[in-house]
């Protein structure tokens, strides 16, 4: 992205959020009054300010604390968000839990093992962070907002909303700078890092990032932000001192000393290893997974290698040289060296440091690994592992007390781990926050979700890959896999599964059950055979149909006009886009769009959410939608006669689908 276009993007983004600050609230409860334009955030739940006051005095900051009673405070400054965070109130340890399924924030007393309160939120919370004065910032992924809450004087009373602010689509990771002057937010679908004023939540600037950013860490000097990505072979580095916030990256493509056919993704967490000088963080630990899109695949019927396709690792980033410590990733030994499919952490989702130990929460195997954080690759230096309930999505450590708490989303349970040497490797306590299934997720779908993330199910794959390994968050990993029929890109699932048959790039199956079973066999799984397996297959399919789709953001007026123009072009018979993609969907037919010598027809895929699924075409030959529109003229619609402005409009429409 050129500096000029970057500036334009930033300006548009900031303008959009600034404009949003005074807009009416959508889902927060209770209904808040309109916020003052003097503050970036919308006030929530505050007493109305009298006209006289607003005429004569500066308006009170709606984000400020409203009572002065003691509340739980973070014992050690944890600036980085998770789905669970700890705070201390007198001699009690309080855990705040972001429960995305129940769209609520739980307050849990870790010592008495009691759920003290459940605070409903205006959206599904991704993560949270506790500020120094006890207020809690929560990112609401499906509401495109962050919200700031204040604990009630008694933790049993829950938290009250103070203010909120709009973000690019799908806010996830949060980071508060040491002086709390700035709050950084990553947006997954919106692929952005947004800075907000820490005291008012007023948007300051936004930086465009590559796809699917997740965790963010800002070094103590405040000069750089490091961002992990769920897809895309890199860790982004944003220069916060640069007026244009230039972005660099740590290249994660080098494996075993060379650039290979491996890709590194699943970067959901990022931890700073603090050494002797806390002000100078020299290393970041990024648990990730490397997969081989090519090796051994040409003569097999698999996606990627039948063996060792997935190799979990912890990339250690040298923050000074902005490169991998050791210059490359080592995947020798791959999955087997990490314990084999039954033990390997191929879906890392949560992390926390406890001294020189990295606690890593792993979906699929439902375990927390205690790794030696000082190792060349901590993933290969496991000191012990704790079994935890299904779906560990967050960890918070309490190093002074040699314990940690883990939030298991699928089981709705908080586990307390005893980190003392020699202690048992099962949780010291398990606190179930709710025994009822969350709304919109029945028992069948809940079972399907567990299966979707199962990394050691021989029915699904032969090498420990889960559905979620390639379909990260139900989406896709941006990888074009070598298959017997050529390169095929992982296809988006979330939000598209109700579009109907046929399925697969070749449209080879018309029943979803058949297609899922076929995919399992291509992953060297044994597929499904028994009656119990069929029940699981039905559960998996049920979950596919309800998994959350990406969250769109409301466009501003200029964008709305552009998208409308793009829609006209899309529907124009001269371009012919809508002929095969009526309404952006699919005509359920197949065409030889690749014009290969073998005349292979490819199924018309739905274009829902196509804007966030780069690269494009079945073989990923186009890096951007713009490249695609310019490259397929005559073979897939007719775009050759369109001007650059018209192509941009068409692109905008596709991005909006």
């Amino acid at each position: 992205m050129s500096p000029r276009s970057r500036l334009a993007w930033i300006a548009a983004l900031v303008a959009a959020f600034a404009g949003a600050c005074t807009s009416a609230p959508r889902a927060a409860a209770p209904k808040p009054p309109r916020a003052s334009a003097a503050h970036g955030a919308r006030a929530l739940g505050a007493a109305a300010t009298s006209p006289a006051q607003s005429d004569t005095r500066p308006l009170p900051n709606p984000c400020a604390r409203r009572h002065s009673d003691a509340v739980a405070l973070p014992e050690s400054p944890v600036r980085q968000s998770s789905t669970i965070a700890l705070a201390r109130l007198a001699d009690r340890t309080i855990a705040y839990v972001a429960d995305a399924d129940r769209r609520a924030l739980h307050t849990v007393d870790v010592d008495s093992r009691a759920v003290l309160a459940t605070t409903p939120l205006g959206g599904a919370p991704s993560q949270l962070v506790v500020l120094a004065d006890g207020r809690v910032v929560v990112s609401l992924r499906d509401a495109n907002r962050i919200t700031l809450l204040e604990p009630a004087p008694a933790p049993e009373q829950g938290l009250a909303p103070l203010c909120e602010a709009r973000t690019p689509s799908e806010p996830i990771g949060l980071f508060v700078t040491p002086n709390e002057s700035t709050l950084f937010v990553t947006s997954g679908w919106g692929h952005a890092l947004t800075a907000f004023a820490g005291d008012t939540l007023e948007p300051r600037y936004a930086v465009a990032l590559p796809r699917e950013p997740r965790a963010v860490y800002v070094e103590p000097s405040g000069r750089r932000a490091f961002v992990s990505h769920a897809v895309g072979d890199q860790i982004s580095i944003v220069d916060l001192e640069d007026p244009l916030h230039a972005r660099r990256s740590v290249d994660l493509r080098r494996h075993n000393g060379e650039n290979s056919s491996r890709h590194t993704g699943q970067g959901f967490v990022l931890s700073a290893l603090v050494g002797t000088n806390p002000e100078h963080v020299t290393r970041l630990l990024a648990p990730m997974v490397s997969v081989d899109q090519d090796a051994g695949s040409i003569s097999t019927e698999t996606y990627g290698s039948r063996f060792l396709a997935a190799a979990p690792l912890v990339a250690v980033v040298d923050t000074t040289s902005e490169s991998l410590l050791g210059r490359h990733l080592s995947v020798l030994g791959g999955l087997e060296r990490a314990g084999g499919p039954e033990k390997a952490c191929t879906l890392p989702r949560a992390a926390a440091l406890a001294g020189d130990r990295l606690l890593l929460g792993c979906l699929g195997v439902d375990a927390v690994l205690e790794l030696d954080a000082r190792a060349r690759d901590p993933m290969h230096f496991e000191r012990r592992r704790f079994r935890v309930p299904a779906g560990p999505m967050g960890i918070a450590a309490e190093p002074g007390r040699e314990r940690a708490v883990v939030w298991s989303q699928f089981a709705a349970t908080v586990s307390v781990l005893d980190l003392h040497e020699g202690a048992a490797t099962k949780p010291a306590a398990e606190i179930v926050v709710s025994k009822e299934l969350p709304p919109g997720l029945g028992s069948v779908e809940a079972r399907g979700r567990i299966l979707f993330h199962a990394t050691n199910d021989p029915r699904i794959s032969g090498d420990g890959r889960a559905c979620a390994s390639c379909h990260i968050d139900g989406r896709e990993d941006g990888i074009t896999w070598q298959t017997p029929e050529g390169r095929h890109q992982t296809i988006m699932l979330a939000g598209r599964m109700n579009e109907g048959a046929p399925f697969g790039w070749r449209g080879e199956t018309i029943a979803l059950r058949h297609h899922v079973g076929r995919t399992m066999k291509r992953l060297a799984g044994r597929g499904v055979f028994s009656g119990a397996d069929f029940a699981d297959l039905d559960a998996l399919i049920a979950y596919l149909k309800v998994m959350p789709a990406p969250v769109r953001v409301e466009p501003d007026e200029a964008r709305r006009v552009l998208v409308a123009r793009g829609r006209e072009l899309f529907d124009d018979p001269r371009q012919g886009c809508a002929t095969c993609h009526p309404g952006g969907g699919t005509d359920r037919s197949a065409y030889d769009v690749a014009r290969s010598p073998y005349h292979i027809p490819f199924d018309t895929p739905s274009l829902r959410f196509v804007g966030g699924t780069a690269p494009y075409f079945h073989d990923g030959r186009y890096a951007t939608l713009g490249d695609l529109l310019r490259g397929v003229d005559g073979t897939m619609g007719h775009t050759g006669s369109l001007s650059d402005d018209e192509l941009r409009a068409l692109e905008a429409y596709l991005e909006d689908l």
Partner: protein
Amino acid sequence: MKTSHVFPALALACSLGSAVNPAKAEVPYRFEELRLAEIPSIEAEPDVAWVTEQFDTIGAPNPLPDSERSRPAADWSGLPRPRLTNEHGHAAVVRIRNLYHPDSHQAHQWLRYLQSDDASPIAMACGPDTGEPRGVDTYLLEASRPEGPRYTVVEAWLDGKTCKGLALRRYQTTVKPLAGGLAYTYRTHCARCSPAQSETLHVVIPTAMSSSATGGFRYWTYLMEHLELPLGPGTSGSLRARIEEGSIRSWNRVVPRALPVADVELRIETSFAVGEDEPTIVLATRAVNILPL
């Protein structure tokens, strides 16, 4: 991130009892603190550049470059004898390099099994008819030396006809025993090398059932092996060795204090981010079960 850990022999002894019980295979690692400054360091030249595949005018191998002949001659009789232990009972390794590929690591790493005339240990004879000059490495670990453990490295061209060697590199250093004598270690510093290659950690251990080290291994014989890890800024390394009780038994013949005879895993991790003051070294061991092949 300045300190490293080593476990004491006593701790190993305590943990070994459980090693033979398959139900307790997951024995925790044992760590003990070790300071970098405690590891002896010696200035060393970069690795010797062995010249490969030189031939004379009629095609016969002639691996000793003329330029090397100008080096001062060394009396081979003063160097360790080619056998597992020298006359004083110290561990010694002599490796004769492959005649045609003296620089090839690959050409040497299988010698342990092949036992060809290039293998180590072998007997060597000198005399007018004993052939061409060969590259020869000698390594001597004097673990039981009363003044403290010492390690000697000599890499030389040996002219079998004259029984004289031309030393390419030679150094002698004290070494620090780790894990109660399970490993001996020292550092080399190379002023002429790149920063990343400027510092190397050397580890001498009993021959392992399986081992790997990021910096590779210098040799691997029936008695012991010598592995290397990078210590320069911007580098990281990992050493993992699983040593059978049989190797420990042999090792006990050359170390001053006998180790418990059991299967054991040794881990050493090195890492040195550019912005850090010095490298981090983590050393840990644990009892394991090594299944027979």
